[in-house]
């Protein structure tokens, strides 16, 4: 029967299984069914074992729910309550839908990890085949040292996936096509819509407010593109538009970004301005003022474009760094995220700016770890090569004197006699020694071993070698023998393992030798 600590989430009466009436219980970790009147569960499955659930189609008379397990077998429950069968089944289905994914992840995660490791590393895969499939090592031992990452759920491994950012040109990519007469056709894909929502949370908010209550999606987008919010020169902002609010909020956001400024003390944006050098170099004339009053129409439209451009870029960057969090407070988002805020640690008042510039890590004296100086006592040992210290022959000093005198005597009257250098017999014997098959040419007949052994044999030998290395690793990991468990493992289990491996190798060897002969 269910243990008392198990929490029962749902009880469904009048559920038939294999033509028997009973009750279905959904617990915290498993689903169970017991026949009516009995105390025990005849059917009990852990959620982790369930691969998926299936339901019978809505039109059918029988309302059924089928559970398919990982092992392949399936169990079918028939909801037999006349009035509430469908509702019961839906309730069970919903609950299962919520619970199954939680357990699925745990079980499969390990398997997935194992599969991934085997696929990524062919050497590991070969080792697995050699050792586990041929039953030299059991699978648990094989994975014992290698799966450290999974149970620790090392998040570093899963950071390989990067989020896809937003293309800065996403609005420009919606190239409008002329629609025959005076109309424009905008092609919106789901990607573009998502980009718009991520970059301009204001638009997303408007969308959520208006669609599908007030406007259809099509109407919303039509208005979006028609509004001057979208168009470049947003001068007339007075029109009644659902997007006029967005424009105002954007202005506010932009102003707050400007006020916040750049936090990097080494970047001084305020000192940048349009300076003129001379006529023809740079902008001539009065400095542009920031107030709206004395602007020409052209200047103000340029100003509007540039402002929009900056705002758009800032929003794209902000959206990328926001990483898809749902916007809670709109004002805080547009104001708090700008590209330079990462340097907030280094924010110093300008007085300290110079001091900061002086301290660059790279240029400072290195703090190398302290080393011990080399103290060679007998350095002449290095000068001596693999030549014996004493010469083989010992010549007496009398011998030396004799030899020297002899040779001096001989060479005193040396005259080259180049016609008598060789006799023909001597020459022919030398030639025969040098010809193929001669005395001096014997060594060439030997081939390197790797040319004589076929490559498949070499490959098999390599696999065997790697497998033997793995077994040796298990062997050495048992040392130092501290516990009786290790001792027993060494003497019992490993012995067996090594014996199996040796037999395998022996079989391979005889097979290869027989093939040769």
């Amino acid at each position, binding site marked *: 029967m269910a243990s008392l600590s198990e929490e029962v989430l749902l009880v469904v009466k009048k559920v038939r299984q294999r033509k028997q009436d009973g009750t279905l219980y959904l617990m915290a970790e498993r689903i169970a069914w017991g026949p009516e009147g009995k105390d025990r569960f005849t059917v009990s499955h852990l959620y982790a074992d369930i691969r998926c659930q299936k339901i019978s189609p809505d039109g059918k008379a029988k309302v059924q729910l089928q559970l398919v397990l990982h092992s392949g077998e399936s169990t079918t429950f028939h909801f037999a309550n006349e009035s509430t069968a469908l509702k019961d089944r839906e309730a069970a289905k919903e609950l299962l839908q919520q619970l199954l994914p939680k357990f699925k992840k745990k079980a499969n995660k390990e398997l997935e990890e194992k599969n991934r490791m085997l696929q990524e590393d062919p050497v590991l895969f070969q080792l697995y085949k050699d050792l586990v499939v041929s039953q030299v090592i059991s699978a648990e031992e094989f994975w014992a040292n290698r799966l450290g990452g999974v149970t620790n759920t090392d998040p570093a491994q899963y950071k390989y996936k990067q989020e896809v950012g937003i293309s800065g040109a996403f609005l420009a990519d919606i190239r409008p096509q002329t629609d025959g007469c005076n109309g424009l056709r905008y092609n919106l894909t789901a990607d573009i819509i998502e980009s718009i929502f991520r970059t301009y949370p204001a638009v997303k908010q408007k969308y959520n407010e208006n669609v599908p209550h007030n406007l259809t999606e099509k109407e919303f987008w039509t208005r979006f593109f028609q509004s001057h919010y979208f168009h470049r020169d947003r001068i007339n902002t007075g029109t009644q538009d659902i997007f006029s609010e967005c424009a105002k909020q954007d202005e506010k956001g932009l102003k707050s970004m400007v006020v916040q400024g750049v936090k990097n003390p080494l970047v001084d944006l305020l000192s940048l301005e349009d300076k003129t050098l001379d006529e023809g170099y740079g902008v001539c004339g009065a400095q542009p003022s920031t107030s709206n009053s004395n602007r020409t129409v052209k200047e103000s439209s340029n100003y509007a474009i540039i402002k929009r451009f900056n705002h758009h870029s800032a929003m794209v960057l902000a959206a990328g760094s926001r990483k898809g969090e749902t916007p809670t407070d709109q004002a805080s988002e547009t104001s708090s995220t700008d590209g330079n805020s990462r340097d907030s640690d280094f924010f110093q008042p300008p007085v300290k700016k110079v001091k900061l510039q002086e301290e660059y890590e790279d240029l400072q004296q290195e703090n190398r770890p302290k080393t011990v100086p080399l103290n060679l006592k007998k350095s002449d040992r290095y000068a*001596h090569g693999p030549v014996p210290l004493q010469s083989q022959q010992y010549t007496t000093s009398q011998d030396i004197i004799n*030899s020297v005198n002899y*040779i001096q005597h001989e060479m005193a009257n040396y005259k080259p006699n180049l016609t008598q250098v060789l006799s023909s017999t001597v020459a022919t014997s030398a030639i025969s020694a040098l010809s193929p098959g001669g005395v001096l040419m014997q060594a060439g007949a030997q081939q390197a071993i790797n040319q004589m052994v076929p490559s498949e044999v070499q490959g098999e030998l390599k696999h065997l070698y790697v497998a033997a290395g793995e077994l040796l690793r298990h062997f050495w990991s048992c040392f130092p023998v501290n516990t009786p468990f290790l001792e027993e493992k060494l003497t019992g289990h490993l012995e067996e393992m090594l014996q199996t491996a040796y037999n395998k190798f022996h079989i391979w060897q005889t097979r290869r030798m027989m093939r040769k002969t």
Partner: protein
Amino acid sequence: MCADDEVSLLVIVVDVNPIWWGQQAQREPEFTLSKCLDAVMVVGNSHMAMARTNKLAVIASHCQDSHFLFPSKSWRGADNGGDDASSSGDGKYELLSVANNLIAEEIRNVMSKSEYKGNSTETLLAGSLAKALCSGQEMKSRILVIKAAEDCARQYMNFMNVIFAAQKQNILIDACVLDSDSGLLQQACDITGGLYLKIPQKVALGQYLLWVFLPDLEQRSQLVLPPPAHVDYRAACFCHRNLIEIGYVCSVCLSIFCNFSPICTTCETAFKIQLPQMVKPKKKKLKQPT
């Protein structure tokens, strides 16, 4: 064949160790230093005759010094054309006859001048090789060593430096060994890509030189020549000078030992190795018979 304007230098280093040659002359009178030098001249002449741009240099390697036999300081080249008896009357190419005469004269000087002092009985081969390397700087060159006496242990470091310098400069070192195998020269030939040959018959030296060592590198690829010998690259342990295959190396000073010792004798570093813990045998309590 080779380009006409490519200068190719052959440097022949001859071991003229007087002690060895003196003993050799007494052992085998039919092959003495004179015969050896004749063979050297033959191969030198042949080299110069192969192409107009080929050049020759001959160095005599003695116990006390190394001496350039050719070209020597007294050679003035074309200036000295007529006045000495260089025209030997047999229509020989002048350059060859001049070279031969110079070599003969120089070797006579070298051998007669050697007043034997000190105990060195070994040939200063490393020095000769170094001189040969210096002379072959601007042109394509190779060195042919004709070795008579044994290797000298004290020259090992210099020898290895010369070998690596030659390798860097792409200068081949060939070796023709008359008597005992030389490990150093085997390494030199292996590293620089030259040929090592220990000849079985000393009297046939000329034939071996012409057959094996006269062709240069490009021509050798077309010929069937003695295969390279297996070189023993084993290191010698610092304690006994035995050649070992597996040994112990100090991680601080990289000196090689054949046996483990807890203190390196060269740099006096102490090594601690954790010995495996001894598992104490448990005393089994005997069951009391009931």
